[in-house]
C-alpha cells in the first residue's frame, strides 16, 4: 500500500506518531522540570527541600510520567537511529533486547525512587 499522498502523519506508523506526541509533552515537562528544580540553588541540590517537594503526590505523578515518557522517547529515538543501519536479524534482535532491558531496568528504578522516598527527619 502506498502512503505517497497521505502524508507521513497518516501512514499509520504508531512509533512515528507517538514520538511526536511524547516530544510535545516532554517539551512542556522539561520546562516545568527546569523551573521546579533550578528556580533556586537549594531547589535542586538540598536534600530536605527536594524530599519535601516530592512528598506531594501530584509532584510524584508528574515525575512518573516524565520518567516513562522520557525513557520511551529517548530509547525509541535510539532504536530508530540504529534501524537505519544494515545488520543481521540476530544482531537487530539482540540490540532491541538490550534497549528494552535497559529501559525497563532504569524505568523501574526511577519509579521505585519516586514512590518509596524517605520522609524528612
Amino acid at each position, binding site marked *: 500500500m502506498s502512503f505517497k499522498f497521505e502524508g507521513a502523519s497518516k501512514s499509520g506508523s504508531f512509533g512515528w506518531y507517538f514520538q*511526536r506526541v511524547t516530544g510535545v509533552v516532554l*517539551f512542556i515537562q522539561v520546562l516545568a522540570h527546569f523551573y521546579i528544580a533550578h528556580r533556586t540553588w537549594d531547589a535542586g541540590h538540598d536534600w530536605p527541600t527536594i524530599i519535601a517537594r516530592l512528598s506531594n503526590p501530584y509532584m510524584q505523578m508528574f515525575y512518573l510520567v516524565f520518567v516513562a515518557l522520557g525513557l520511551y522517547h529517548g530509547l525509541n529515538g535510539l532504536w530508530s537511529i540504529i534501524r537505519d543501519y544494515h545488520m543481521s536479524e540476530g544482531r537487530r534482535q539482540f540490540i532491541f533486547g538490550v534497549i528494552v532491558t535497559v529501559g525497563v531496568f532504569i524505568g523501574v528504578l526511577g519509579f521505585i525512587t519516586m514512590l518509596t522516598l524517605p520522609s524528612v527527619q
Partner: protein
Amino acid sequence: MRYVKHYGTWGYILHRLSGLALTGYILIHIYLVSGLHNRPVWDQEMQIFRHPALMVLEWFLFSVVVYHSLNGLRIFMIDYFNGARYQKQLLTGVLVLSVILFAGMGAIMFL
C-alpha cells in the same frame, strides 16, 4: 554511501547527536537521583557536581536540551503545519535562539 549535506541535513544530524546525548544523560540522571534514598549518598553526589568541569558540562547539557527541544518543535511544524515550506528559516531561528539561550545561561551560571 554519502549523502549531500544540505542546510537542513545539519539540523537532522544535530538532532540525532543531541538526542543520543540526552538519552545517555537521562539514564545516568535517573540512576543518580535514586541516591535520594540515602541522604549521605545524595550530599556526596551534589558535592561532586559542584566541580567546575561538571558545571561546564551542565551548561552544555542545557544547550543540548534547548537545541533538541526547539528543533523538535520545528520537526512538529514541518509534519503538521506545512513547515516544510519554510524549514530553512525555521532552522536558522532554532540555531540563533539556541546560541542566545546558551550564552544567556552561561552568563547566569558563571558571571
